[in-house]
């Protein structure tokens, strides 16, 4: 799939931009702060309904403007769909597909698929487990949009159960016993939703692991081998082979029982602390380089390459599902040495559409520098 046309109004720094695009590699060149990233952010927003840079929508709207509009024409297997999003901070977004209003903005998910790599992704390697959980969950939703519902249900149950643990714990400390019967109800719901999420994540990691390892070896062949491993709060109780390539597919029903057993074991600890201690919300995707964890041990260049390998792995997973996503490489080349740049360019040049941003044209390898746009002073022009 590829984006044939991008049009933004009052989005970030852009009052208006109208960019016809074409399949294959395109490069956006411009000095710092000219709005290159803002344009690829708009494309990412249409694909995921969220920005890779900020958690709220307010910064996406140009200062002083009431709302931002992003229009994209997406071509997928010869068919063109027009997706239009109106972003109004504090209100629900409005979406139109082929000029007809979509019932819910969520309906546009899946029309455009992107894999976006940006400097922020360094946090995937160096940041908290939450960053890696989000990476896994975002990829799950990109593969199966229905899982957005599972994810929000799980978070809701988690909050409710946490509130109950806090109040029951306080009641128990005051000698009033607390209501254990409703806690069991929430246990059941947490385990059911949690087991499904866990099963999806385990299967995802099993699919992803060889692709990430290959992508890392592709970008950094002289380095140690990269590995990813799912670490669950179930610990040693997790059935053998789950989350491992070639192992058995994770069975949600079995995991549900295991989660319930595990919860029963830590019950009094949970009541003391008022936090849910078992479940996918405390899991991690461990990144291993050679035989040491990447976090804390990997060099800057290695961390950068690992983050890139995760995104390239995600790209391959989505491609394996039969849809070729749009690859966006935001400001990556400046951080890589010449050999890694060359390797990444070879991988990226094979994609149906690649959008690359860079401050300096010399950073971009020749394979990708076919179509070039100059970005500056609030305007964008195609130069070749």
């Amino acid at each position, binding site marked *: 799939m590829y984006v044939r046309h991008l049009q933004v109004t009052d989005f970030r720094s852009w009052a208006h931009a109208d960019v016809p695009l074409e399949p294959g590699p395109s490069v956006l060149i411009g000095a710092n702060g000219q709005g290159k990233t803002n344009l690829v952010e708009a494309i990412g927003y249409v694909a995921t309904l969220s920005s890779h840079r900020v958690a709220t929508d307010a910064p996406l709207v140009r200062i002083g403007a009431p709302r931002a509009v992003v229009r994209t024409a997406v071509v997928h297997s010869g068919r063109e769909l027009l997706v239009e999003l109106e972003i109004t901070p504090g209100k629900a977004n409005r979406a139109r597909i082929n000029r007809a209003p979509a019932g819910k903005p969520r309906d546009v998910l899946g029309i455009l698929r992107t894999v976006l790599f940006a400097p922020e992704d360094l946090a995937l390697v160096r940041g908290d487990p939450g960053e890696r959980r989000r990476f896994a969950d975002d990829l799950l939703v990109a593969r199966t949009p229905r899982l957005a519902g599972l994810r929000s249900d799980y978070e809701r149950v988690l909050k*409710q159960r946490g509130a109950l643990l806090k109040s029951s714990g306080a009641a128990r400390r005051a000698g009033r016993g607390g209501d254990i019967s409703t806690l069991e109800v929430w246990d059941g719901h947490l385990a059911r939703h949690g087991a499904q999420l866990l099963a999806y994540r385990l299967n995802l990691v099993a699919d992803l692991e060889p692709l990430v390892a290959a992508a890392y070896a592709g970008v950094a062949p002289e380095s140690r081998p990269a590995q990813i491993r799912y670490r669950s709060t179930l610990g040693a109780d997790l059935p053998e082979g789950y989350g491992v390539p070639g192992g058995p597919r994770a069975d949600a029903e079995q995991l549900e029982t295991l989660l319930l057993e595990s919860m029963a074991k830590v019950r009094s600890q949970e009541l003391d602390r008022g936090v849910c201690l078992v479940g996918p919300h405390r899991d991690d995707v461990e990144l291993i380089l050679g035989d040491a964890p990447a976090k804390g041990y990997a060099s800057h260049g290695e961390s950068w390459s690992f983050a890139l390998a995760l995104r390239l792995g995600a790209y391959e997973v989505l491609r394996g599902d039969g849809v070729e996503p749009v690859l966006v490489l935001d400001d990556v080349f400046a951080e890589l040495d010449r050999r890694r740049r060359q390797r990444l360019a070879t991988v990226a040049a094979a994609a149906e559409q690649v959008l690359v941003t860079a401050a300096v044209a010399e950073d971009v390898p020749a394979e990708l520098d076919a179509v070039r746009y100059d970005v500056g002073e609030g305007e964008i022009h195609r130069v070749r």
Partner: protein
Amino acid sequence: MYEGPVQDLIDELGRLPGVGPKSAQRIAFHLLAAEPADVTRLQEVLQKVKEGIQFCDVCGNVSEETTCRICRDPRRDLSVVCVVEEPKDVLAIERTREFKGRYHVLGGALDPLSGVGPDQLRIRELLSRIGTTLDGVDITEIIIATDPNTEGEATATYLMRMLKDFPGLTVTRLASGLPMGGDLEFADELTLGRALSGRRAM
């Protein structure tokens, strides 16, 4: 900002659910222009609703007397009780004209974040209702019709656990799935997924 009472009225109206500042202003000026008799009638109704309306002793629905119209109705089937969260859910089910039994209004759903546990809901009343025989008829079926969201589902599970040990009592849950008259292609994945897992043999 308007002066004195007008602004007070707009502020009060703006506190109502579903009324924004613009609508509040519109209603306020409508009331200002209305006939005094109309305003007095509204005033009286508002007063009555707070003073005259009580909750039914049996089911907990809003009622003018100690027992509500539905619980007093002799044509109603005494053996079936439909459990709902709010009085407005009673109205929703009544509109179907399919249900001939009686209701039990819980007054909400389990919601630990807002401090609502089983003691804040009318669950004890439901249990004692099931235990008593009325006019020689026992309650034989409970239909749980709480909302199909996180809190409603948790409440349903809780009720299932409380009710499963009553001898001779059937407990059912409303089905969830596709809306009638709709197109399959427009159903969202969650609803369609549920409809698929809850499919039935024909």
